[in-house]
């Protein structure tokens, strides 16, 4: 149970984050969870060990505005979210074009449940390794 969560919409993100920065909050991280139709994006901030969270629901395919102009440290997390979950983010200061964590031939957006590929239908087959001690 997270205390201190406030639910906001997409166009309020920049204003709320700017107010938190003037107040002296430190940027901790961002989390994204796949909930079927929407992505549930959470922003976490901290001041003197007390946390504050902002929750935004983004529909799949809709772009999310970047906060790397306000907090420089956010751009690494946003690039990672773009790689692993397929969230489109506009206006990052440094854009790695989807290759921050994943290499050229890797499957696209592995943690996204609606994109098939390395989603839920694929079975991972390994070749039969040498058998160990057999007792019967």
């Amino acid at each position: 149970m997270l205390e201190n969560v406030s639910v906001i919409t997409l166009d309020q993100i920049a204003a709320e984050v700017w107010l938190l920065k003037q107040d002296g909050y430190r940027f901790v991280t961002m989390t994204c969870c796949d909930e079927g139709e929407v992505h549930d994006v959470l922003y976490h901030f901290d001041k003197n060990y007390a946390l504050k969270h902002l929750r935004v629901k983004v529909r799949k395919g809709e772009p999310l505005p970047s906060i790397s102009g306000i907090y420089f440290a956010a751009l690494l997390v946003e690039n990672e979210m773009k790689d692993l979950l397929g969230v489109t983010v506009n206006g990052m200061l440094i854009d790695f074009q989807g290759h921050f964590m994943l290499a050229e031939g890797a499957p696209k957006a592995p943690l996204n449940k609606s994109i098939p590929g390395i989603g839920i239908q694929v079975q991972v087959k390994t070749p039969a390794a040498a058998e160990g001690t057999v007792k019967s």
Partner: protein
Amino acid sequence: MVNLTNSIFRKLFSRPETLRYPFEKRELPEGTRGRIDIEIDKCTFCGACEKRCPANSLKVTREPKSWTLNPYSCIICGYCIEVCPKKCIVAHKEHYSPNT
């Protein structure tokens, strides 16, 4: 470098810190997890260890009765030792030898 000169001088005339393996082997303490083994006479082939293994390295079949461990994918975590109802899986001290 004045601080270390005394101990460098002392260490020059004492024996080396390394062990001359394989002529001298290291003493392994009791309770070290080196290798997983089973006492097959007590096993009831219930399959609880196979369901719980995080690395999927155990195979248990009821007919014919057999218990197989793949040593190349076992991570020696010890979860199978805890869940076995008959407590017949043990962990020996010595690790797998490269020539078996």
